């Protein structure tokens, strides 16, 4: 999995480099390339303010339009201030006697002049305070949570009101709920135990799906393409799997039944590793897919501005349009895969079988 990302990233970087080398002769073009690259990188990262759009005025000054978000730091006490104090990374923010500065989308503690020291590999050596800021991603997660809550609460109520029949938007979501129950939960977990996991599976499916779709909107908030978010989701699957597991599951990990004793000894660490690799693959898969999708899509959109010729631009427009459609599919597919695999792991955890027969 890790290799896959590296391959993807290098391919992408090579592509970008080739574009850069192509445009080397024209300094204006090069500048444009650098700008697009920075823009894509900026977009892929979380940010402390909600940027809606940016404009360049007549003097070549870039203005970011959007709204600031609260920054919450834990640095010898709680520090709360508006992200507008950073002036998009250009200014030093002063809060409670400490100074903070943004560098590559991260908050560092600095002195009053805002100097950030770098080591040989261009990593900032300043202290990073514990950061619990309401970032753009957190806002999107919050919006998704509220939206989902209102949507599904309304759906739940409409059943009670209409005598067990969904109405309106529920007509669209009910088949999906049923699909998750009948084709994901029941076949993987089994008729006996599936009910315990339904809430989690439904929530995670719609949560990932909605966030993936939000990622494709022009606001382009790359939440599910953020490693922290996918880690949090995969960690929950990991915890639920191992906390609800029965003794069969643990027996299969530590003392595989039906194989000779030396094999049992060899299998135990492999199985134990598998326990961690399974959710790890979940988090990397979702992260890599969404990240890659965003990179490809934004690069293709960026190409339109690089080519600036009607053939090249319209070609890349067509391409980015096609990729957008694929990304809509991928958004659903990744939500489905995450849910499906979570259900599969839960199924392993509660599986009950006769060892004599099964092996």
């Amino acid at each position, binding site marked *: 999995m*890790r290799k896959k990302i590296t391959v993807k990233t290098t391919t992408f970087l090579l592509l970008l480099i080739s574009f850069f080398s192509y445009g080397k002769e024209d300094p204006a073009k090069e500048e444009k390339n650098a700008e697009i690259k920075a823009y894509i990188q900026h977009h892929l*990262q*979380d940010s402390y303010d909600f940027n809606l759009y940016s404009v360049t005025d007549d003097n070549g000054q870039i203005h970011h339009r959007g709204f600031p978000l609260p920054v*919450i730091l834990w640095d010898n006490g709680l520090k709360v201030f508006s992200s507008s104090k950073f002036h998009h990374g250009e200014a030093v923010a002063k809060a409670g006697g400490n100074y903070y500065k943004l560098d590559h989308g991260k908050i560092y503690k600095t002195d009053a002049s805002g100097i950030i020291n770098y080591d040989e590999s261009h*990593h900032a050596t300043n202290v990073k305070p*514990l*950061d*619990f*800021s*309401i*970032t753009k*991603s*957190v806002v999107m*997660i*919050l919006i998704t*949570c509220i939206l*989902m*809550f209102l949507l*599904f*609460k309304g*759906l*739940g*109520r409409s*059943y*009670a009101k209409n005598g*067990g*029949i969904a109405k309106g938007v529920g007509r669209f979501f*009910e088949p999906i*709920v*049923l699909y998750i*129950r009948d084709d994901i939960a029941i076949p993987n977990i089994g008729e006996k135990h599936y*009910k315990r996991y*339904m*809430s*989690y599976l*439904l*929530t995670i499916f719609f*949560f990932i799906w909605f966030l993936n779709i939000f990622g494709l909107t022009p606001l382009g908030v790359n939440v599910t393409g*953020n*490693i*922290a*978010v996918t*880690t*949090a*989701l995969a*960690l*929950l699957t990991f915890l639920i799997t191992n906390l609800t597991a029965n003794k069969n599951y643990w027996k299969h990990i530590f003392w595989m039944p039906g194989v000779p004793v030396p094999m049992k000894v060899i299998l135990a660490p492999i199985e134990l590793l598998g326990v961690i690799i399974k959710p790890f693959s979940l988090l990397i898969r979702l992260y890599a897919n969404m990240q890659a999708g965003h990179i490809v899509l934004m690069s293709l959109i960026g190409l339109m501005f690089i080519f600036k010729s009607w053939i090249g631009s319209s070609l890349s427009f067509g391409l980015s349009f096609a990729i957008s459609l694929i990304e809509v599919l991928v958004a659903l597919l990744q939500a489905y895969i995450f849910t499906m695999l979570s259900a599969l792991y839960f199924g392993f955890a509660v599986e009950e079988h006769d060892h004599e027969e099964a092996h």
Partner: protein
Amino acid sequence: MEKLLEQFSVGLFFWQTVLFIALLFLLKKFAWKPILNAINEREEGIRDALTSAEKARREMENLQADNQKLLQEAHAEREAMLKEARDMKNKMVADAKEEAQAQASKMIEQAQAAIESEKKAAMAELKSHVAGISLGIAEKVLRQELSNKDKQIELVESMLGEAILN
């Protein structure tokens, strides 16, 4: 990997976990339970309705079969009753005939007996009457005949001849 670790934001992780778990429990309470329960209830309702419809259909069939059976039984009974009535009628007719025959023959017998006894009585009367008349005649004849000698002999002879013939 290093880049990934660098990108990892503890704050975002924290908020994601907190918000997601909150969402999970809220949705579980307010959405998934009512939705899944409603769907389950509806499905059970449909299943129940289908089974009860099937049951009703079967009952209907049974009822029809019962009706058919009853009808057949009624037919059979009617048939039996008719047969019995016919038999009874035949028997009655036969009995009546027999009795009439017997009565008739008895009457005929009685009549015959009566006729016989009448005849006997009449015969006896006739006999006595004839005897009386014969005696009277014989007296007269004898009175006459005895007056004439020859005639007496002739008579005795004829009578004797008759007696021998008898």
